[in-house]
């Protein structure tokens, strides 16, 4: 009787459905699993701490043209993610507790295929990764993609080095009083990190990835008076930072010691008086081809306003150090820019979970805004 009914029901799941198909206008589906579509220069990677359930943080992958979500990657407990230089893999610095919020803490680097989003490898590391908001600089690869550096905090600061090709943990390097990882593009044997005493520490690595030499730069900023945001925008061997009070500081990290250029102000004296300051979690972006930088700015800034969302986004020309555009800020706390031709600027608002898109080929031109994306996202990377 049961079998009889099933045949009448014409269920493709149970019996061959060829005779059935003729009765229906909608064909029977084959359920499949998709790969990501081919990447465009506007593919976005949004890192979401999901603060209310941060044992279960996540990466959202978004098509920056349609603003459709095209995939997710599980980041574990406050995971941090970076792309390999060839964009073939996503690397995640994370941890798992065996019973969700208790039990053993398992530290590892998860490796995901960037096309299938399947987990390819799990590399065991000391369970010390920084359980913190996503920022660029919490995990970085060397320029050649072989070594992976991951920021730890116990809360003492250290950096874990993994050999991605060998698939193994290499070293844990003490970086007391310093934070975040900055890697040059012309050499692959070192990383730098910003220190609370206003310097940068550069750690040179041996062939294996173990620490060989550590050198501190001269002091170039004052964390008390005018701290630098740690999220810097990279171009080749240099990182461009902005400071709480609105100065631009570019630092070259290719040498044995980091070399800071002379800082310059984003704000005029009048703007400084009106309290215009950078703010947010990723306040500055840089377009590689033009060198232009884009900064989320808020007025009436003061001590403690450094995470305020942007009232405006300002664009600057690097050669003239002049502002070339100012547009409404869409409450942005995270700014990112695409590479190469036809640049676009993406402005994500942590508070509103919204994403605004600008054409950045000339002056900034707002194209569209969509929401919601994520729960508490603070890092946005572009393909």
């Amino acid at each position, binding site marked *: 009787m049961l079998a009889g009914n099933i045949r009448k*029901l*014409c*269920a*493709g799941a149970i019996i061959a459905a060829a005779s059935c198909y003729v009765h*229906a*206008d909608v064909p029977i589906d084959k*359920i499949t699993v998709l790969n990501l579509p081919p990447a465009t220069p506007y593919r976005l990677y949004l890192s979401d701490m999901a603060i209310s359930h941060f044992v279960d943080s996540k990466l959202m992958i978004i098509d920056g043209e349609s603003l459709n979500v095209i995939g*997710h*990657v599980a980041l574990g407990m406050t995971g941090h993610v970076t792309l390999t230089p060839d964009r073939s893999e996503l690397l995640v610095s994370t941890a798992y507790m065996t019973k969700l919020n208790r039990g053993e803490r398992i530290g590892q680097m998860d490796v995901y295929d960037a096309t*299938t989003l399947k987990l390819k490898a799990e590399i065991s590391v000391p369970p010390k990764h920084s359980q913190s908001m996503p920022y660029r600089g919490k995990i970085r690869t060397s320029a050649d993609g072989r070594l992976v550096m991951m920021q730890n905090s116990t809360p003492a600061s250290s950096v874990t080095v993994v050999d991605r090709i060998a698939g193994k943990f290499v070293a844990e390097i003490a970086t007391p009083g310093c934070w975040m990882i900055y890697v040059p593009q012309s050499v692959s044997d070192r990383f730098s990190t910003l220190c609370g005493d206003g310097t940068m520490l550069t750690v040179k690595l041996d062939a294996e990835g173990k620490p060989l030499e550590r050198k501190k730069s001269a002091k170039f900023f004052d964390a008390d008076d005018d701290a630098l945001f740690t999220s810097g925008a990279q171009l080749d061997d240099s990182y461009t930072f902005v400071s709480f009070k609105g100065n631009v500081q570019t630092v070259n990290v290719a040498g044995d010691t980091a070399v800071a250029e002379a800082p310059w102000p984003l704000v005029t004296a009048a703007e400084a008086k009106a309290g215009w300051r950078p703010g947010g979690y990723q306040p500055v972006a840089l377009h590689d081809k033009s060198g232009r930088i884009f900064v989320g700015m808020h007025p009436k800034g003061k001590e403690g306003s450094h995470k305020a969302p942007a009232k405006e986004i300002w664009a600057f020309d690097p050669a003239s150090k002049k502002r070339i555009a100012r547009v409404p800020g869409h409450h942005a706390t995270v700014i990112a820019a695409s590479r190469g031709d036809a640049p676009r600027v993406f402005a994500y608002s942590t508070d509103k979970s919204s994403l605004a898109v600008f054409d950045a080929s000339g002056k900034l031109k707002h194209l569209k805004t969509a929401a919601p994306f994520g729960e508490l996202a603070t890092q946005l990377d572009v393909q």
Partner: protein
Amino acid sequence: MQWFDNFFEARSRRAAQSISRRSAVARLGKLLVGTAILLPVLPFDRIGKAIAAGKAKDKRNDDTACEYWRYCALDGFLCTCCGGSISACPPGTEVSKVTWVGTCHNPNDGKDYLISYNDCCGGVTCNRCGCNSNEGERPGYRMGVHNDINWCMANSSNSYHCTVAAVVGTAESTKG
């Protein structure tokens, strides 16, 4: 699955006196439950999409809207908003091994279709385009048509990501 051979099975079959469309569906659901669905390979035709392009304002033909006709008993997040499609799971997830079934009316051809609501499993929950439709849904004593449960329960990863709505057949012939 051993429970389906249990001594109560024969009795419960006898207890069902009338063969309504819905109870037949419930039974189909029961059979689908616990079985990896091997769907036949058929031409992949996105007729719903094509129609949607023509009638953009009819949410019954917009597969990112809760009102889409195939979603009449879907409680969950739409894979069409999560990097999947109406019958494909997003990258990195896997198709649920077990599923619940709805019977939905297609306004385009006037026919009723059996819809398999396969969950896509693994990773995080998508949390986009949440829908809660319950036509023909029943409590867990009719497990094959129950949607208040995680249908990733039988996969190696029990994480729930989103739900697809695949046509698995037509319910037409049982109307009589």
